[in-house]
Structures are given as structure tokens and as C-alpha cells.
């Protein structure tokens, strides 16, 4: 018993101060990409062609990026060509798929649920997590929200064991053919009104597996999505930021 107390003292108090205090992330962390202007049409074309995941396209205001498809690659060929660079901005979650795409307009972060939903879920949100061919990195970094540092429960958010106890689904993975019906059945088992959160590039648009005949390219065609959390995997802070925005806490 004494050794437990002694160890407890050594380990100290670890719960982070987020959201009151901003987190310190690695200087190599790759957050929201900034698109560079002043590229020639040809350079833009090259950048579009170089992205293996179709995250870039030609927009009216120059290059356009879709954060739902972007994997924030360390060796992004478009970044190497000078078409974009990564900022340290971890705030990425949006309410609508089209908000994930931008050229030079302001990035429209997720806003809060409507009043009725906030009244229901604002102080207590129970989520059932479904991994539908996620690679276990998205899953692991959601699990991390339960650890001392993030302490998700202090915001009234909790992952629960049954869809029957849940207010919504937190989905990871590109949705394999083999998980499609299990996902839909789990969704059906959640009582109304319910939320759907797509966490990670896979769940949003198929991620690295977009185009494989064995995956559905994310949940978009299967279920209505209320919150998109980009990243491969999203940093836990990105996910937490998104959840807090959804609940009107940021």
C-alpha cells in the first residue's frame, strides 16, 4: 500500500490543462496545410498530379485541398514542390464535408450542435466507437482520450460498451465490405436522436485505402455525418478540440 502511495507521489498530477492552456506539440507536428499562392498553372497541375490520394485539385482561386482526403504526409510531394506547407495548427474538425475543402478562404471549423441537441448532449455525450477496418492507430489515439492526461470524462464525454447506451457513433476506418452491415446494424441500434462522427482520413474518405474494391471509401455514402475529424490518425488534441466545438465548449 505504502509503495503505491509513494509511486503515486512520484507520478504526480498529470491531467493536462487543455482547453484552458494550449498544448505543446512537436515542432515536427504536421497540422493544417497552408496553400501557397503565386504558383503557375503548370506547377499547380504538377502538385495535383503528385498527391497519391487526390487531396488536391484546381480551384477557381488556385490550388484547393480537401482535408478529408489528406494524410498529412511527411514526404508530401506537393510540399516538396513548394505548393503547400504544414502549420502547427491542430484545429481541423468541421461539421460539413465541404468545409474540409479550402483554397484561400477562412477554414470553417465545426460549430456547435443546435440548441435542442445541445440541451440533450451538451453536458453528457455517450459514444459507441466502431472500428470499420481502421488500422488501430485511429482507435488507439481515441482510446488515449481516456488516459490521465486528456481525461475525457471531465467534459462529460464517454465511450460506452453498447450502442443501446450511446448517443452516437464515433467511426474509424474506411468501412470494409466486411464491416458494412455490422456498422449499419450498430447505427440502427443507437436510439434517436443520434450523432455520427467520422474520425480519421479513412472514415471520411477511405484514407490510404481509397479505391480498394474491399472498402466503401468512408462512411459518407452510408450514414449522415455530424462531425469530421481529419488526420491519419487525428492527433488526440484534434479529436478533443472537435468534440468540444461540437458541444459548444470552444
Amino acid at each position, binding site marked *: 500500500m505504502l*509503495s503505491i502511495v509513494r509511486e503515486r507521489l512520484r507520478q504526480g498530477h498529470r491531467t493536462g490543462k487543455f482547453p484552458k492552456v494550449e498544448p505543446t506539440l512537436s515542432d515536427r507536428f504536421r497540422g493544417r496545410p497552408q496553400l501557397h499562392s503565386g504558383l503557375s498553372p503548370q506547377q499547380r497541375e504538377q502538385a495535383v498530379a503528385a498527391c497519391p490520394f487526390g487531396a488536391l485539385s484546381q480551384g477557381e482561386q488556385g490550388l484547393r485541398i480537401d482535408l478529408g482526403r489528406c494524410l498529412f504526409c511527411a514526404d508530401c510531394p506537393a510540399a516538396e514542390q513548394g505548393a503547400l506547407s504544414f502549420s502547427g495548427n491542430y484545429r481541423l474538425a468541421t461539421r460539413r464535408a465541404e468545409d474540409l475543402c479550402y483554397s484561400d478562404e477562412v477554414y470553417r471549423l465545426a460549430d456547435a450542435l443546435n440548441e435542442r441537441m445541445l440541451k440533450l448532449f451538451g453536458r453528457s455525450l455517450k459514444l459507441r466507437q466502431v472500428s470499420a477496418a*481502421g488500422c488501430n492507430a485511429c482507435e488507439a489515439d481515441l482510446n488515449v482520450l481516456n488516459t490521465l492526461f486528456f481525461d475525457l470524462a471531465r467534459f462529460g464525454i464517454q465511450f460506452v460498451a453498447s450502442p443501446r447506451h450511446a448517443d452516437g457513433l464515433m467511426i474509424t476506418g474506411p468501412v470494409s465490405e466486411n464491416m458494412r452491415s455490422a456498422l449499419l446494424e450498430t447505427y440502427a441500434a443507437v436510439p434517436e436522436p443520434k450523432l455520427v462522427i467520422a474520425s480519421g482520413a479513412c472514415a471520411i474518405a477511405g484514407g490510404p485505402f481509397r479505391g480498394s474494391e474491399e472498402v466503401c471509401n468512408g462512411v459518407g455514402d452510408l450514414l449522415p455525418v455530424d462531425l469530421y475529424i481529419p488526420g491519419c490518425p487525428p492527433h488526440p488534441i484534434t479529436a478533443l478540440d472537435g468534440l468540444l466545438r461540437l458541444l459548444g465548449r470552444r
Partner: protein
Amino acid sequence: MSGAQPVCLPVGGCLPLAELPRLDYERFSRLLREAVQGGARVVSYFARPETDGLTLYAVLLADGDGRIALLRTTLGESFSSLSPELPQLQLFEREIAEQYGVRPEGHPWLKPVRFHAGWTGAPDVWQREAGRHPLVGDMAYYRVAGDEIHEVAVGPVHAGVIEPGHFRFQCHGEEVLHLEISLGYQHRAIEKILRGGPHPATVYQMETAAGDTTIGHTWAYAQLLESLAGVQVPQRAQVIRAIGLELERLANHVGDVGALAGDVGFLPTSSFCGRLRGDYLNLSAEICGSRFGRGLVRPGGVSFDLEDARIATLQQRLKVLEPETCGAIDLCFDSPSVLARFEGIGTVSAQDATALGLVGVAARACGLARDLRQHLVPAVWTAAFAQPVLEEDGDVYARGNVRRREIVASLALLGYFLDQLPAGDTRVPVRELAADSLAVSCCEGWRGEVVHAAITDRDGRIDRYKIVDPSFHNWSGLALALRGQQISDFPLCNKSFNLSYCGFDL
């Protein structure tokens, strides 16, 4: 005489296909049997359609000297199953049956593995309807009959934040008579979409084949391309990879010990380790910006260098983490009530582990010295790596204790690597791959060995890519560990293996 002996390769080696004799099946199976009797084991086993017919490749490894031995033969529409004699082949043979529609005659447990349509259009071994996606989990489950027998089915969607899979228990009261594990829910067709590659997306698919083993799989992939391209990776890059690999091991092992403690209700270790795991992930992010090592390993080397200041930061943070980690973990291993829950639970005998071909932590917990770090390049490994960590008892305690001791060993290795980082480049270009060649690469990931094999076509494109995640071997170990156990001990046994679903399903 050609074909009297298997053809040998060093780990990470490459061979022109023409140098590999095509044996008749009888001789192939005799040599395979002899090799296994002589202490080798099958680390990869896969087929590829060729002009001579469907060709079967066996990749063997002897743990003593770390040499790879290769055999190949041609299969007809059916072949005689070797699984009854060599149970370690049972899943490999099922996999080949599912992919190519050839039947291993006499296979004692011929069931689908991943529930996908065949790759060649050949008739399905299970007569599943052509032109439709097979129904996942649709197979004949093993059943125990009797008045007091009941069946418990769990999954694919589980209670925790984890990947999907289906478990069927045959129980008599609390006692599990048999557990059958049916996977495939995570299948993304990784091997299939790699054909004609490497494609621009390939390296990202390797990083996420099993996303908690990013370094392990990407290392194996990179090494494979390097050997096919005849490229030597600079020492500095190799050591940076090794640092990434050990950080991956630390994060996962620390997390696993915490999860084991959590499953027996010992909360101090569980909560401390949950936080510490995150700190190790953050060290990976310090190196490459990603907590899972994404973007670090690339064919030809690594894409991030470690400046002196960064090395100093890592060393400093490790100095703080080391006593905190050991303190958190010792707490649980010093607690009699925890040990009472760990000891004698979920035991796998060394004999069964050998027969099933278990690898990694699960094998070392049964006393089997299977740790490919003994044989890995670079030389800095062999200088720093002492011996595989072994336990004898094969139970939850043994699997936990292997991790605990490997955590200490990994911390020492990391200290050494950070101290001894050789100067030089971090990346060299990897150009054309050798045509019509076969290469095999291995890496000791945190769960166990990751083995990749590739065969190139005459243009040097990848024609067949085979991935073996350690979980492929080890799920059968978990099934066996449950025999005669209380069903309520399943979560604990499961955590003690902590296997990958997507690494298995691919």
C-alpha cells in the same frame, strides 16, 4: 544436384527466380518436413500464378543462424495438405485455398480466412456464389454438443475501442472447452492492390497495414525494395530506424502492461502506464511529427534526421521516463493479488507453441528463442542486442513479464543508439527493382516478427507481395490458451496476446 537442398538467403536477401528450382510436390514436402524437423519454421508460405501453373513458395527460417531457406513447387487444382503433420501451415493453406481456389486435400480445418472473393476467378473451394461478395463469418463453426453446453458469440463489434473480430466460445458452465476465432472484418485487400507496384500510395498502405506497427511493417517493406534494388542503406539511417522501432516497442509494451493491470482491476499501474504510453508516442512524434512513426521509414533510409539538440531532448526525456516506467510497472508485478490473477492463466505449452509456429512475445513467453533482432542488420544491433528475453511458463504472467523485461532492454538499447548514432547520410535513392526476382525481408516488431516477401515481374514491377504479420501466427495461440479457462478470463488472455486484427486481415 539441383533441388536436393533448399536455396538459402541471408535475412533481407534477394534472388533471381531462375535460381530457385521447381520441385515436384513430393520432394518439396519432404524437404519442408526435414527442415522443420531440423529446427526451422515456416515464416511465409504463398502462391503465385505462373506460366507453369500455380506456384507455391515456402520461406523457412532457422532461429539459430537466421538464414532464410526457400523452396518452390507447382500446385494442381488440389494438393495434399501438410497441415496434419505441420499445424503451423494450417492458416497458410487456407489462405491459398481462398485466394486461388485450390483445395488442400485432407486439411483438418478448411475454412475461409478473410471472406473475400477468389483472386483468379477459379471456382470457390467453399462453393460460395460467384460474382457476389462472400458473407463475412459465414462458415461452419466448431460445435460441442451436450445438455449443459452453451455457446457464446462475441463480436464483430466489441465493447471497447478496438478492432472488430468474431469469437465463438463453447462452454460448459464457466469453463471454455473451445474458442474459435473468425476474422476478416478488417480486410482491405492490401496485397492485391499492391500488384503492379510499388504505387505512390503503397508506402502509406504499408504504414497502416497494422497501424500500431508502422515502423515494423515499413521497415520490412523498405528493406525489401532496397534488396531488390541492390541498395545499401546508410548506417545512420539504419540506427534511426532502430530508434523508431524500439520506441514503437516501448509505447506498445508499456500500454499492454497497463491494460493487463487494468483487466485485473489494479488501477495505479493501469492509469500510470496509460499516460506513459502516450509519452513514448510523443517521443516518436518528436522525431517525425507523428505519434505512430508515420513518415519516418522510407525505402533508402529515413526522411528525418536527428540533430544533436533533438538527440539531447530525447535523452533527457528518456531519463525522466525510465524510472517512472519501471516504478509504475514494478508496482503491479510486486503485488501478490495481481500475480494471483496472472499466474497459471491462459497457458500455452512450449510444444504447442512450436507446433503452431507462434512468434514474438507469445513464443518467448513459452521459452522459444524467437527474436529476429538477433539477426538484423545493422551491425549496431548485434553489438547492442544481448539475448532474446525468455520466460518458461507460457501463461499471462509470462507474456506480461516478457514485456516488462523487454521494456528495460529497449530502454538500454535506445540509450545506446542515441549515444552511438553514426555520422553520415540518412537516405539514398532507390531506383529500379531487379526483374524476375524474389526477396524476403524481416523485422522484429513489438508483437513479433514481420515478414514481407515480394516477387517481381519481368519489368521489375511487384507481381506478388506477401505480408505476414505476427498476429497471423499467434491468433491460434490465443484460441488454444483459452481451453479449460474460465470464460471471464478471456479479456485478460486476449490482452496478454494483444494481437492485430487488421495485420491479420490485411
